[in-house]
């Protein structure tokens, strides 16, 4: 092993030669007068003063400069900023400044960083004047281990430069730098101290874990040492370096150490690496005894800080792999050992490879269901942070430590964005918590993480626009808003004159204006979802990139095709101008606008992302992929995309299920180096029997090219002590009885094992609603999770009723409806809201009359009975009067407080669940109202109009999830992404793929490679009536092939949906198929798919 002095000498000599070779006349100053032993600063006389001298003076082209050469085996890291730092002796630095000041001669500092596992050795340069501005006074540990007054600066303030090669063999890196006086400390002297300290910490923790009151340290671990323990206690990185040397680990680890074979290795020391936040992976033939308590070892396993594969009969070579380096050129015996370890189940080799992929490559991961992709991404991020310190992207640049906020992560939903951020934070946190003296700057990363863009692609796009959108005309206050009515209005205006002309020519054959509206909206949505930027708010519109098709039906048919295009073009143009003027964008326009921002200049004003992670990549559409690739290409960010083509279930949003192939093509188109691809197939969710039983189905679909499933995609179970799972089964039922049958099954399951979770997975909302009702009819609680149901939930509807009644107390219908709500109990009660006097409010209000009595009155008097509502009407007026001095939202809250609708019970089954749902939704509604109206003015009338609009048109807002996941849940497959249940039933499988055949109206977009986007539509009106008409833009000769392609794509998506549904089960899976269904070669419903893969079917 080299000592620091020897390394420094090599560096000094090398740099001197390098200067000479580059034309400098070099004078070494190391032999100057007054030099003392081990003082690496020779003295020189400047202005009558003896000052420490730099190592060289060198002249080139008549210019003299001093050069001070330094060497370091490790940068120190600021625990609170995560920034790598270098330093020199403060006294020397002050002298260099004086030399510079007195002579006017520049004093350069060049520093050689020795190679690490993940980076080559490199030279860094700066000058002392710059260091004066950016450095600070601190103390650092010098050669003898004593603290030295130091001048410290961030590595990023230096510049990476070309320099001479310095030979530093593996394991030769010195422990401490040369600075300071005294004899250099040797690693051997520190080994026992490190071990003693570690045992002391371990004992302390063990005692704490045992709940012992005393934290006294057992005498056997209080070994004394000639050197102070504080050195290592205060500097975990130094202690880690000491430990890894004592173990013989060839490099200083930053993230992980993998050890194959335990011969000659002290297992306690090896596990001790975890004490410093280093992940440890072990492959051994046995598990020798060690001192780590069982519970703690379990915690290490669970936190993925430890993976230990025991392969009893294997011939294992002795090998170290530090930070995953060399994974791609392993000797055969090592590779075999790793494969054996993976097969044994203790080591997740695929995940290890992904996490440790080289930092400067793009990574594509295909992750099957339940294979732990979230965990893999989190670990990958920690790996990058830990090993990405101080890298620069090329020679001549300032090295910058990777900060957590330079990583962006795109997820598909807001919920998964938050979950992802939390998972990363947790992964970091556990490094800090479970390692007892963490050498990683975890706290700094956690602070930075708060600023990281971990978000949905639309939010990501919005942030890009907020930062750099000025260049394309979009300021940071650009708002995102739903504009459904505006789009409809624009379509009608664009259509108006043309439609009149068409009607005058063709009369009854011309579709109605509202049909046109539906048709154009469908076309609009299909094109936008497929990445066509119709609006072109921030760039050119994509309307000309579309093949709009031709009609096979002569004049009118072609006019309809032309009119479709013309209306889209005109509406897009008018909307685009409007959006720009009012700085408002619909959600669909965000991604194209962000792409336009990135393309607006060579250096767009956006955050300098260095890594971009994309989750659920299979659901990425064409426009989103453009944005992702532009971030890669224009900002130089490395990509990490993960997903599973088998789980692509958003075709209706433009994701075609071929995102990975498309990505590979586009990498090529952009002349980017191909990404590295990996596969994760170890399933951590389902039991072995269940997993095995699903394979024949998936395999059958794969064979028929309905699912991208090959032999390599087969999910492998994780090793378990016992497998509680059962093989998946098909149950024959009458299709129309699906809800009842499912409810009966759920009841049976619930009786057998109460508390285990049951998922009822449906294709459509209505099916889930029907099953929920059936389950509740059996007196069982059942949560419902379907997309977009919030605005039709009872809490929302009933608030609308309250507002209606207060806005117009003369509206007797509104008052009667109010009596039907949960608000009624409070409003008809005796407690007045704050701000209304009790005397006015009154008491003893009687229940209103039943409808029949009210109705009967009309026969007697000519009018329906309303008199009994007078008192209620007065109360509604009193409530309305409060609004003159109380803002509307405050008023609602006061009403909710005093009338407490969520505390009102209804005489229906399972009202407890419904009541909780009501409370949740009411809270959520208040949150949404608060966010939507912010500080802006809000009147009751405005709120009422807005609420009515949402109730009638908005089907995108989901209800908030329950506080605790209900153990029986009816949900759609789209809502089940990422979820898992002990038992799963798929009750309804007979729904025909695609839109209802009865309508015969379809819209689709094909993206043939190398050709414009092809729009297909078929418009079938008034089927089986005398007005039956049909229009299409697909010529006869293309009809079969184009619609056939669409049909195939639809069937494939359905197969993927079913794949997602089936793989949610952990232990048991039942799929219900109509009793009369038979196997079919070309599937048109899920039952066909199931019978296709059923070994008995």
């Amino acid at each position: 092993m080299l000592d620091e002095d020897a390394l420094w000498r090599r560096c000094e000599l090398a740099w001197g030669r390098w200067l000479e070779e580059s034309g400098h006349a070099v004078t070494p100053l190391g032999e100057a007068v007054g030099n003392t032993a081990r003082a690496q600063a020779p003295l020189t006389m400047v202005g009558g003063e003896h000052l420490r001298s730099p190592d060289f003076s060198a002249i080139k082209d008549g210019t003299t400069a001093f050069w001070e050469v330094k060497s370091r085996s490790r940068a120190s890291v600021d625990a609170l900023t995560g920034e790598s730092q270098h330093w020199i002796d403060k006294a020397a630095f002050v002298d260099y400044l004086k030399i510079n000041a007195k002579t006017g001669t520049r004093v350069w500092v060049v520093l050689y960083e020795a190679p690490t596992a993940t980076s080559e050795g490199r030279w860094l340069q700066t000058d002392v004047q710059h260091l004066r501005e950016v450095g600070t006074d601190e103390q650092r540990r010098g050669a003898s281990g004593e603290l030295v007054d130091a001048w410290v600066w961030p590595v990023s303030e230096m510049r990476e430069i070309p320099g001479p090669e310095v030979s530093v063999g593996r394991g030769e890196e010195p422990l401490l730098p040369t600075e300071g006086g005294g004899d250099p400390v040797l690693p051997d002297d520190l080994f026992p101290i490190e071990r003693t300290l570690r045992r002391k910490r371990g004992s302390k923790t063990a005692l704490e874990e045992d709940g012992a009151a005393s934290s006294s340290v057992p005498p056997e671990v209080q070994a004394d040492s000639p050197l102070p323990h504080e050195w290592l206690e205060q500097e975990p990185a130094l202690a880690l370096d000491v430990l890894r040397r004592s173990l013989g680990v060839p490099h200083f680890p930053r993230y992980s150490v993998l050890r194959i074979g335990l011969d000659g290795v002290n297992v306690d020391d090896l596990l001790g690496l975890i004490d410093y936040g280093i992940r440890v992976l072990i492959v051994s033939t046995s598990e020798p005894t060690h001192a780590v308590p069982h519970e703690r070892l379990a915690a290490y396993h669970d936190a993925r800080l430890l993976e230990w594969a025991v392969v009893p009969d294997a011939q294992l070579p002795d090998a170290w792999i530090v930070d995953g380096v060399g994974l791609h050129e392993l000797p055969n015996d090592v590779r075999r050992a790793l494969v054996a370890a993976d097969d044994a189940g203790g080591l997740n080799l695929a995940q290890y490879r992904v996490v440790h992929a080289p930092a400067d490559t793009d990574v594509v991961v295909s992750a099957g269901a339940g294979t732990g992709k979230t965990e893999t991404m989190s670990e990958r991020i920690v790996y990058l942070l830990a090993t990405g310190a101080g890298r620069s992207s090329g020679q001549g640049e300032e090295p910058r430590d990777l900060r957590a906020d330079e990583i962006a992560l795109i997820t598909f939903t807001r919920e998964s964005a938050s979950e992802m951020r939390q998972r990363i934070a947790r992964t970091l946190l556990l490094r800090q918590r479970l390692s007892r003296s963490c050498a990683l700057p975890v706290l700094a990363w956690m602070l930075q993480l708060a600023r990281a863009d971990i978000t949905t692609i639309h939010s990501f796009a919005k942030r890009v626009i907020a930062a750099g959108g000025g260049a394309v005309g979009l300021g940071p206050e650009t708002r995102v808003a739903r504009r459904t009515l505006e789009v409809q209005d624009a379509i009608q205006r664009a259509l108006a004159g043309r439609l009149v002309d068409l009607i005058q020519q063709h009369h009854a054959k011309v579709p109605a204006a509202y049909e046109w509206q539906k048709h154009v909206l469908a076309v609009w949505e299909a094109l936008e979802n497929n990445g066509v930027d119709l609006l072109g708010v921030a760039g050119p519109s994509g309307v000309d990139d579309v093949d709009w098709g031709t009609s096979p039906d002569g004049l009118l048919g072609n006019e309809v095709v032309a009119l479709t295009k013309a209306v889209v073009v005109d509406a897009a143009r008018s909307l685009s101008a409007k959006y720009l003027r009012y700085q408002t964008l619909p959600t669909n326009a965000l991604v194209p606008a962000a792409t336009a921002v990135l393309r607006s200049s060579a250096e767009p004003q956006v955050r300098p992302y260095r890594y971009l992670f994309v989750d659920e990549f299979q659901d990425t559409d064409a426009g989103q992929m453009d944005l992702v690739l532009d971030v890669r290409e224009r900002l130089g960010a490395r990509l990490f995309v993960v997903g599973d083509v088998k789980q692509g279930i958003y075709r209706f949003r433009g994701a075609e299920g071929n995102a990975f192939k498309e990505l590979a093509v586009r990498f090529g188109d952009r002349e980017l180096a191909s990404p590295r691809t990996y596969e994760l197939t170890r399933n951590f969710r389902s039991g072995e029997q269940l997993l095995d039983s699903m394979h024949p189905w998936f395999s059958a679909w794969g064979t028929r090219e309905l699912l991208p499933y090959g032999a390599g995609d087969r999910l492998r179970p994780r090793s378990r002590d016992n497998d509680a799972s059962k093989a998946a089964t098909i149950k024959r039922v009458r299709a129309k009885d699906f809800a009842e049958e499912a409810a009966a099954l759920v009841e049976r399951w619930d009786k057998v094992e109460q508390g285990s979770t049951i998922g009822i997975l449906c294709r459509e909302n209505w099916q889930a609603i029907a099953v929920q009702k059936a389950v509740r009819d059996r007196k069982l609680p059942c949560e419902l999770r379907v997309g977009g149901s919030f605005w039709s939930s009872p809490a929302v509807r009933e608030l609308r009723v309250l507002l209606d009644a207060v806005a117009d107390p003369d509206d007797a219908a509104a008052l009667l409806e109010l009596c039907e709500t949960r608000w009624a109990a409070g409003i008809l009660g005796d407690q007045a809201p704050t701000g209304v006097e009790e005397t006015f409010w009154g008491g003893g209000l009687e229940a209103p009359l039943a409808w029949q009595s009210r109705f009967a009155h009309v026969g007697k008097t000519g009018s329906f009975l309303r008199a009994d509502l007078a008192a209620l009407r007065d109360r509604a007026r009193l409530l309305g009067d409060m609004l003159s001095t109380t803002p509307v939202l405050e008023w609602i809250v006061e009403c909710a407080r005093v009338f407490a609708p969520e505390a009102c019970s209804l005489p229906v089954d399972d009202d407890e669940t419904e009541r909780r749902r009501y409370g949740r939704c009411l809270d959520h509604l208040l949150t949404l109202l608060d966010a939507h109206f912010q500080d802006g003015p809000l009147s009751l009338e405005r709120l009422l109009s807005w609420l009515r609009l949402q109730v009638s048109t908005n089907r995108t807002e989901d209800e908030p999830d329950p506080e605790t996941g209900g153990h029986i849940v009816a949900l759609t497959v789209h809502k089940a992404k990422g979820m898992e249940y002990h038992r799963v039933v798929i009750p309804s499988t007979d729904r025909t793929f695609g839109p209802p055949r009865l309508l015969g109206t379809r819209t689709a977009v094909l993206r043939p490679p190398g050709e414009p986007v092809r729009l297909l539509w078929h418009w079938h009106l008034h089927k089986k009536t005398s007005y039956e008409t049909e229009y299409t833009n697909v010529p006869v000769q293309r009809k079969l092939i184009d619609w056939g392609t669409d049909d195939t794509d639809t069937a494939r998506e359905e197969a993927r949906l079913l794949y997602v549904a089936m793989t949610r089960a952990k232990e048991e899976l039942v799929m219900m198929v109509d009793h009369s269904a038979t196997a079919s070669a070309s599937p048109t419903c899920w039952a066909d798919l199931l019978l296709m893969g059923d070994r008995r079917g």
Partner: protein
Amino acid sequence: MQALALPRVSQAAITRALEQEIGLGWDQVAHVTATTTLASAVQEERVVALPVATLVDLVTLPGLDGDMCLPLDAFPGPDLMASSLREWRAQVRDWQQEGSGRRLRTGIGVDDSLRRYVRENAQDRVGRALLASRRQYATTIHALVAAGVRPDGLVAKDPAAQVAARAWAQAEVDVPSLKAPRELLWVDHDDLAQGSTPEARGLRERIEAALVKAFGSSERRTIVHHGFYFYNPVQWALFQAVARVPGIDQVFIVHDDGENPAFSTWRYFFRTEWQMPVPRPVQVDEAVTPAADVFREVLTGSNPPSPPSLRVVECRSPAELVRLWRAESEGGDEPARFAAEAEQVERYVGRLGRQVAREPDATGHAPAPSLSQLPVGSFLLALHRCIEQDDAGAVSFSLTTDTLLDLVASGYLEVGEPTGSVSAPLLRRVLPYFADCRSADEWRERSAQLVEVIDARVAPRGGREDSDDDSTRIEGAVANPTRLVPWADISRDDANRVRATVHAVVRLLEETTARERVVLGDHLKTLRHRLDRALRQLPPDEARAVEAKLRGLGVLTEEEIDVAGLVDVVAMILGRSLDLEREDDTDPLSTKVTKLRGLDALGLARVEKDIHLANMAEDAFPTAAQAVGWPFTLDDLRASPDDAVEPVTAGLLETRAQTAGLSDLYLFWLALDGVGPDGTVTISWVADSAGERRRLSPIVSLLTVPESTAAVQQAAGGVAVEQGPAPAQQDADRARPVLPLPDEDEDVLVGAVDSIDARASAAARACPRRFAIQWAMGPTASFGPTHLQSMLHGNVLGALEVDGEPMLAARATGNVLWPHLTSGQRASSYDKRVVKQGGAKPAWLLTLKGNKDGSGDLDAAYQMAKDGIPVDELTIAPPEPAVLPPRAQSAEVCAFCPVQARCLQWRDPRDER
């Protein structure tokens, strides 16, 4: 200058350190603090302490030119404090509010300058984007001016930044007070030391005068600075300027024990390179609380035990937070409350809590009210938001139906006609008729047309008479197809009221937009008139704050601004803040829930009560600070020559951005150490913010049990997260009243059925509930949904034709009844009409669906209406004890329901099969 590092910064510790290190007592020095909270804590000891922002104002505002100059005369001296702290604070507040008025005036001027600049020089996408984001632009340039930056030397790459720099340069010419903070404070230090220029001498004089006024006369003065764990460029400029005034010493008190990582922020700021003193440690012994101790341990890598004095609570919604606070207050002893992103929590508490979150203000400083939430705000903002200015500067207005509704519903519209204003519910029904109206002429003409339609087209067929009984009303409405249109089912009087209301609004807008530029003083008088009524309803202190703003603007009496800029003026007057300050610079007490920066006062003295830190979510804490606001970047500053940007400025801004998280660590530690021995610290966050799931702040999660397996949790330890008080978690304690069981004789029911026009009651065959809401009990039987209106157009025309009206006349009726439909919609609807000669009967209009041969619910309803067959009495009035009859079995009926937007039981057919 010197700096002392103390392991605790309690008053006792500081006093000891001052006596020990500089030989002066607590009362013998002048105290300057980083925040108002800290100043307030010092003032409690009857010692003058000024927040640094006030000191900057005292030094700069008297230096402004002309009537913008705010002299020191009205600022209270130390004597007043000695006699009455309350009065002293009131006078300080009044002086500050005068200052706010002047800043508001500058803000208005900058806004006006930007508008003109864009109009004259940047009529393109970029210029318009700048104008649209003018609030951020204004905040940025005010901050940069204060940081000593000049616009002319900025080297920006981004097109928006380039335009912004030019607009800023022009604004400095147009609005001299904009650059005053820079010109008055950023004076060359050598000149200042020597007093060699008029600017330098002026600054020295103003500093001396400000200190004398605030702290009293003294030959030699020591200023002790508290709470500067970071500082910004303007504060740095002040420290440096004061340092060059003879006879003044400055001592910075820094919180540091040499070990705790949470104390490290100052290290990045107190550097000799920035001419700031490096603190020297002073030993003072005082214990910290167990919770703070645990956090310190955690920061250095230890596992946290779970201190009993710490609670972490997850609130799923803002409403849960409010419930939690309410529960905390039930014992009568409210905790001291602080919040990250306090504006958001203030909004939650104000809107959702209806309670003041903070005790009566320690400073006596009343936060400005948000008048914008009250009807007057609704009225004024709606009025001014209509104003539009085209690229050439011409002014007009664009009035939408929503805006008209806001103006009317506010109650502040003075119609001035004898008939009075129309009621809001009726206006809501009528407004679709005006859907495409924007300009004055369009609104006037359409309102006249409405009157004419009612007079000439609706009333002759049987107009609405509010005095009719139900049978007569129903019969009249069934017979007159035009009354199926919501805006036509109104009386003549109502039509006239609508017209009068429209005219009143249009008149008001025309007056406001009569000229392109407006004398602000004149307009303020109008505003004042309208505000008077609202101000009378406000608490006196809050009204005073608005008054002060108006007074501050009073100096602008003769100045003109673009009419289009009025909306910003109104927003600033009504709003709580001027929106011109960066987050770091805002007063912790400017919100009703104290901002986290206000925690600094706990260093001086712990509170003798519990503490609640709210909103400690991942996106709110720690703070994500930006070095430079939009549209500039730090690179723009760095690339600029030294005379445009002081080198220290860029360094400070960058350092602040990078260390903002560390500052928050410090504040968090202060909170944990801020309670007495029996106190509890509660930390909460709101997990659902408008659909965005938010997790706990990573800093706080350092103290909590991680979400993981039992083994990990046991090994990692930490505080368990509690759930907030969920809605409906208590038992149901109420039920809807039980209705009496109806028991009407069959004869009576049959009689009732017979008394109603069978065409109307046929609706009950499709859906009994629909009949009850549409025909029986609701305000109108017309068809609300827009898609049904489109269908109605052609079919009403068809019905009129069947009824004998000539086609052209029928079409004319259609054109004036549905003028807002496009020509295409009208032509299509007419072309597709079902009701026509030889087609469906006019009764089809009542269902808009149904076939004479069909067997569905709507088919049957149509058939009964067509043939005048009465509906079965138990169908229309079932015997259940319910307030309204049930809806139709099939959700398909709901798709064609005229009252679908008003029916509690309406179902989307897509949800039911």
